[in-house]
């Protein structure tokens, strides 16, 4: 294998595609998953507005979505992708299945973060006459912010992992390069370089996320 500027260009493009896909999928994933997670936490039997039927329904829906393997989801949602993006291949098109895979997973993490909030604090806010929106925004999300941020870090890492399969629909990105060159063409060098970049990326995201979470945590003296 020879290393040429083309290769560097390809890797830079791959890194960019990965960041683009992961960034937007996480963003859209939270736009769907955050409200869904809040709804789950709030409507559960110990939540601030228990709604048994609604909880069961959402719980079931999230479980179904979470149990579909990503590779299958990628193909299953092609009609929807075409409708939303106009085409079914490329990085932008991959954001659709990535978002759909991420949202229920994010919803579960949000749900579990919000359920960690001390019941006593919720009770205190209720005793002050806080309305549902204040409870959600200032008490649940406000108090769970550290846990929620840790969740964002986990979500980024997981979506990054999923994005490696984007190659199947020509999504591009580092994972795609690693599979195409390393796995199909036996170009181990390229594969190793891509995997090293991916590892570094996850490390950086993880370190940044945890740092931010720690900075914002006031629960310790």
């Amino acid at each position, binding site marked *: 294998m020879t290393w040429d500027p083309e290769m560097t260009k390809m890797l830079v493009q791959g890194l960019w595609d990965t960041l683009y896909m992961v960034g937007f999928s996480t963003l859209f994933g939270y736009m769907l998953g955050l409200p869904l997670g809040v709804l789950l936490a709030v409507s559960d039997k110990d939540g601030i507005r228990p709604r048994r039927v609604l909880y069961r329904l959402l719980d079931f829906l999230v479980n179904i979505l979470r149990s579909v393997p990503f590779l299958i989801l990628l193909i299953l949602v092609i009609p929807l992708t075409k409708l939303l993006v106009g085409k079914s291949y490329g990085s932008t098109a991959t954001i659709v299945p990535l978002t759909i895979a991420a949202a229920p997973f994010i919803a579960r993490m949000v749900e579990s973060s919000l359920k960690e909030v*001390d019941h*006593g*604090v919720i*009770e*205190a*806010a*209720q*005793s*002050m*006459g*806080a*309305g549902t929106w*204040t409870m959600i925004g*200032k*008490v649940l999300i*406000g*108090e769970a*912010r*550290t846990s929620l941020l840790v969740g964002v870090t986990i979500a980024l890492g997981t979506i990054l992992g999923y994005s490696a399969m984007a190659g199947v629909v020509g999504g591009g990105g580092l994972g795609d390069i690693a599979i195409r060159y390393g796995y199909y063409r036996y170009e181990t060098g390229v594969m190793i370089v891509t995997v090293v970049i991916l590892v570094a990326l996850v490390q950086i995201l993880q370190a940044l996320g945890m740092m931010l979470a720690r900075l*914002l*945590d*006031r*629960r*310790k*003296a």
Partner: protein
Amino acid sequence: MAFIEIEHLEKTYTSKSGDTEALKDVNFTIEKGEIFGVIGLSGAGKSTLVRCVNLLEKPSAGRVVIDGEDMLSLSERELRLKRRDIGMIFQHFNLLMQRTVLDNVCFPMEIAGMKKKEARVKALEYLEQVELADKAKAYPAQLSGGQKQRVAIARVLASRPRVLLCDEATSALDPQTTQSILQLLKHINEKYQITMIVITHEMRVVQQICDHVAVLEYGRIVESGRTKEVFDDPKTEAAKRLIYTHEYTELESEGSGI
């Protein structure tokens, strides 16, 4: 008519393993500005009782009337507004851990829709009342138990309540801190004419600040009256047990000092 009237209050928890009667035909009245104690051993139903006053727990039967208003007849919205009139402090303080002391005190004013700037000025005044103005920028995790309870009291004052419910408010504190918190409660009771319901398992709390006391046992009020009368001449076994156990431990701790 009394300021707070509790009539035939019942609370039953239903579960698969059967019904549990937490409160059985509880009746009492409290005059305006009075401090009313409810004492009992753990499991007697004290916490359930106090939560039935501001409807954090919904009574199974009976009436809760505060200042002529039947709490159970209120709509959800009306209840939220009414609750701003009924403050509550807790054994474990229940402060917002991710907010500064100042922002904790601002919280009820935010709920009431006050402007942030105005709320901050007021919050500082309330913190001065509990002698914690210098901790305004600290976070609850940096405070001692007694300081946390003072913040909780400042927070409760911020909604200018006419009723204050104290749920084992001194139970997590050492005897000295308990004294200072009780003095503070007595002070705000006199200064603002706040009617108080004090839930406790400690006799000395009742002895020090309560005008009237009710003894709760297995969800029933077995004895009630003026604090001094109940203390001087307890009629029921339950009251005797609570009072004599208390005196016994007092003697014991005095004795150990010799």
